Structure formats: C-alpha cells, structure tokens
C-alpha cells in the first residue's frame, strides 16, 4: 500500500503539487488523469524516490520514503518499482536485451527477459538496436525493462504519450495484463484508457483537497 499525506513540492517557488491525502491499495490499478502541469509526473517521481517532497510523507508498505537516504530510495526503486518513463529512458545505441540487462549492474535477475519480451510481442526485436525500433516498440521495451524484475509497484508516466491511440490502447492492454496482481499507477491525459484500470483519479479536481480512490 502507498500512502501520501500532506505532500507538497515546489519548483523555483512555484507549487507543482500540494495534496493532503492519497492512498493506493496493493494489487490494484490506478489511472491519474489531468492536464499538463498538474503535477502527475512529479507525484510519480516522488513515489519512485527520484524527487523528495518539501513537506508531507510518502509511505510504501509502512516505510516513509521521505525519511530514508537517497541510497535506500535507489535500492527500493531498482528492487521493488518498475518505472515506465514518458520518454522511455532507453540507451538507443544499445540492443533491446542490453537495455534490459543494464539492471544486472545492481544484481537484478533478468532471466525472465525472453518471457516478458514474448508477452509484449517483441521477442524478435531482442537483438535489435533501440534506435531502429518504432515508437510503439520502444514503449514495449520500456515496459519490459520495468516488469522483468517482477516489481510490486509499476509506475507509468504517459505510457501512450508518444503513440497514436490504436497502438497506445494495445500497449495499455498489454501493460494492464502483465501488471495483474501488482500495484499499477499510470498517469495520462487520455480518458479513453480509463476502462482498463480499477480506479480513475482526476487530479484536476483534487489539488489542495483530499481524494479517496
């Protein structure tokens, strides 16, 4: 379970996020809707331990990650969180499998790589350089890297942002399929994808207030 209490974050004196409470139950999928700049990505980055809030607390299974060191947050991210970035964050000069095996630097077991790539229909691209893949294929590689370690939590920042709707919908279907039984939090501005998630949160309506999923 992920609990957010009274969290706020500012960038250059401009408030990016200011919430009181938010709770994400384990094993459920959530979609956060909202316009650009409403703090969706900032929220995900704070849950992932990439950013720290100015105030408030974020607990993951009872551990307040705002109170632990950056090293411990890094460890939590690599071991327990699968993060799918909006711009994929792939090394384009490397192959698909090398982009997944990069996790081995931190001792992550990537032996499921073939199985995961197969489930995402890109096993045949395994030894292709990422720069030679289409946007949809790159997105699947990013998903594969996020879920290969069987994380408890999957965070997806605009997973369909760079794709047309048809491809985006297919990717979301696959993502929700492979994320079954895990906590999935995806942010998007496309409300047509809501049907694939257990809960929908409209962030435009909750800044400064309380939201119960």
């Amino acid at each position: 379970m992920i609990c957010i209490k009274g969290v706020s974050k500012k960038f250059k004196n401009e408030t990016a996020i200011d919430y009181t409470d938010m709770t994400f139950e384990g094993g459920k999928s959530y979609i956060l809707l909202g316009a650009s700049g409403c703090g969706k990505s900032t929220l995900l980055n704070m849950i992932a331990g990439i950013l720290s809030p100015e105030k408030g607390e974020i607990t993951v299974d009872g551990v307040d990650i705002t109170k632990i060191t950056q090293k411990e947050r890094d460890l939590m991210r690599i071991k327990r969180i699968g993060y799918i970035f909006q711009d994929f964050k792939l090394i384009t000069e490397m192959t698909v499998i090398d982009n997944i095996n990069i996790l081995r630097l931190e001792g992550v077991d990537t032996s499921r790589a073939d199985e995961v790539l197969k489930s995402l229909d890109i096993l045949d691209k395994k030894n292709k350089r990422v720069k030679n893949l289409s946007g949809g294929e790159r997105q699947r590689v990013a998903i594969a890297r996020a879920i290969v370690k069987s994380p408890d939590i999957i965070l997806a920042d605009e997973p369909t942002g760079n794709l047309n709707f048809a491809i985006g919908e297919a990717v979301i279907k696959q993502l929700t399929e492979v994320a079954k039984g895990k906590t999935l939090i995806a942010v998007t501005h496309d409300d047509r994808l809501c049907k694939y998630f257990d809960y929908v949160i409209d962030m435009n309506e909750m800044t400064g207030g309380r939201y119960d999923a």
Partner: protein
Amino acid sequence: MLKFALKNMGIKKVQIILIVISIVISAGVGVLAFNVSSQVSDGIESNAGYYSLIIGPAGSKTQLAMNSMYFTDEPLGTIPYSVVNELLADNRVTSAIPYAMADNYNGSRVIGTTSAFLKEKALGSGNMIDDKSTCQAVVGSSVAKQNGLKVGDVIYTSHSATEGSEHNKGITVVGILEETFSVYDKVVFTQIQTLWEMHDHGGEESEHEDEHMHGTVCAILVNTKNPSYAMQLTNEYDGKVMEHDSESFTLQAVEPMQIVRDVLSDADDTKYIVFVLCAIILIMNIIVISIITLLNMYHSAKEISLMRLIGISMKKINLLYIIQNSIIGLVSTVIAFIVSRLCLVLMGDYVASMGVVLNTSKVYLPEILILVGIFLISVIPTVICTFVMAKRDSLAE
C-alpha cells in the same frame, strides 16, 4: 559489470579510438625514445672498456676507435704488422690484437684477427678459430641465422667491406657465437692470415685497391699492465712514422674510453633534445587524453542520468566508467609497448650502423614507469569526473 562495460564501449567507438591513438602515441614515443637511447649508450659503453689503447693509421681518432670496436664506417688504412710484434715484445703490454677489415660475406663484414679478439665472447656451438691455421671462421649468431650456417659449412667472402666480387677460396665455419645483442652478432671473424691469403695474388696486378694488404693491419687493440703504461705508449706511438716495403706509415694512438666519452657526450646532447621533445609530446597528449576523457564523460551525462533514474547507484556507475577507462588504458599501453618493439625492429639496421644491435626484448624499468604513468593518466580524469558527478548527483539534491 565487465560485459556491460565492453558493450557500452562498443557504442562509443570513435571517441575510444581517439583516446587509444593518443595514448599509443604518448606511451609509444616515450618508451621508444628511452629504450633506443639507453641501448645505444649501453652498447657503446660495453665494448669500450676492453682495451687500454688502439693503434692505427693517422686520421680521425673517432673513426679509428669506432671502426675497430664497433665495426662501423671504413678503416682509415693500414699499418705494418711488425708493430704488433713490437708491442708483444714490450713488457708493459699484456696483449696486442691485430685487426683488419677487408671483405664481406653476404653483406656482413669480415674481420681478420686472432682468437684473443673474441676471448670475452661465448661460443654457441663449435670451436674458436685456431691462430696457427687459416681459412677458419667464427660467425656471429645473426649471420648464422640469416644465412642458415652451421659448423662445418664453407663460405665464400667477397672483396671490400660491403660489396665486390667473390674470392675463390672458401672459409670453413668452425664456430658460431652465442647471441650477444651487440654488433658481434652481425660479423664474420677469421684469422688475419686468411685475409692476407685471400688478397695475395703472387704479385699479379690487381683490380682492387686493398689487394696489397699482406703484412699489414687496420688497427692494433692493446692492453697494458696498468693505465700509466697506456699513457706512455700513447705518447710513444701517436704520430710515429714507420717504413714497410718501402712505404711510409704514420701511426696514431687513441684511448678508446676517451673517444667513447666524447661520442656519448655528443649523444647525450641529442638524447636531451629527444627527451625534451618527448616530454612536450607527452604533455600535449596528457592534455588531449584528459580533454577527450572529459568530453566523453560529458557526453555520457545523459546515459548516467538515465541509469540513475532506473535505480543504478552512483557507486556502480562510477565503477562502470572506471572499468571502461581502465580497459582503454590497459589496451592502449599494451599496444604502445608492441608498437615500440616493432619500431625497434624497423630501426635495427639503422642503429646497427652505429655499432649497436637493438635487443627488442630488452625492457628498462623507466619504460615500465612511463607505461604505468600513461595508464594512470588515462584513468585519473575518469576517477575525478565520476567523483565530481557523484557529488553533483541530481537525485541526491
């Protein structure tokens, strides 16, 4: 980690090739300059200590000493063999070794002398030339190797020191010297009488200038009982005029150590200039290596931030880049060492004309230090960069 480091290097081929070339140039030039200058100095000094003085025809002192000790250049001319007997009868003298250079065998110089000339050299096979016999030869190891000679083979020498028509009389190889990595490896040694016999045509008109060398030598290598006798003999023989077969010969006497000191003093100036140039090249390349490494790290910033975002710790990232640059440094210094040895092989013939045979397997301690230094220079900028990046880790802010 190593596997990933290699894969990561594979995607930055151009930058890595540039770094490798810079390191190879720096390390290769430094190592080569040091090795050649050291081997030349060592090689020249090693032969100089054998003799107290050298007596030969008047002319260039350096040419006389270099020709009779290192077989370089051409002999100044000849002096009567009777001087050898005169010296051997002198109780201040412990040895007086005749020396003549006249012929060649497939480009290798043929020296007429006695077995005493080779007393410091070990035989790899066979026996030493018998001073009471003729037409025997002891050949240097390189000569044997290049010409496929073995003990018992008969060789035919040619007129003059470097080229000319072949003599009819054969010389039997009785021994092969052990490899010395000196100019002795490239020379054929025979009795002085053999040279006289080769050039003795019973008074017939000869087409060759050196045909009337019977009873003469190019130099006499003398050892005395103590250094003061050497000085006395130098004074006695330097400028002395002798008559032989109605010809007049003016002698000169030189102290080889003094000549070598003069030669090495000139060589030291050249060595100094070479070292200064090497130091400049080295400094320039250190700057280039550092800049390329820093640029490489700068271009890697995106890749590093990507790794940080997916959860790879700064410690692992630092280790990855240090491993990468260590591999580059190690491979480059090994290539530099191999290139320097190949250059030694290529320079071999040129340096041999100075009387020194370069030993490609000879490694001096400073060469190792240069290579280690260059290796560290190739790794240190990365360590500094990674240290700075760890301090500026955006995720820690």
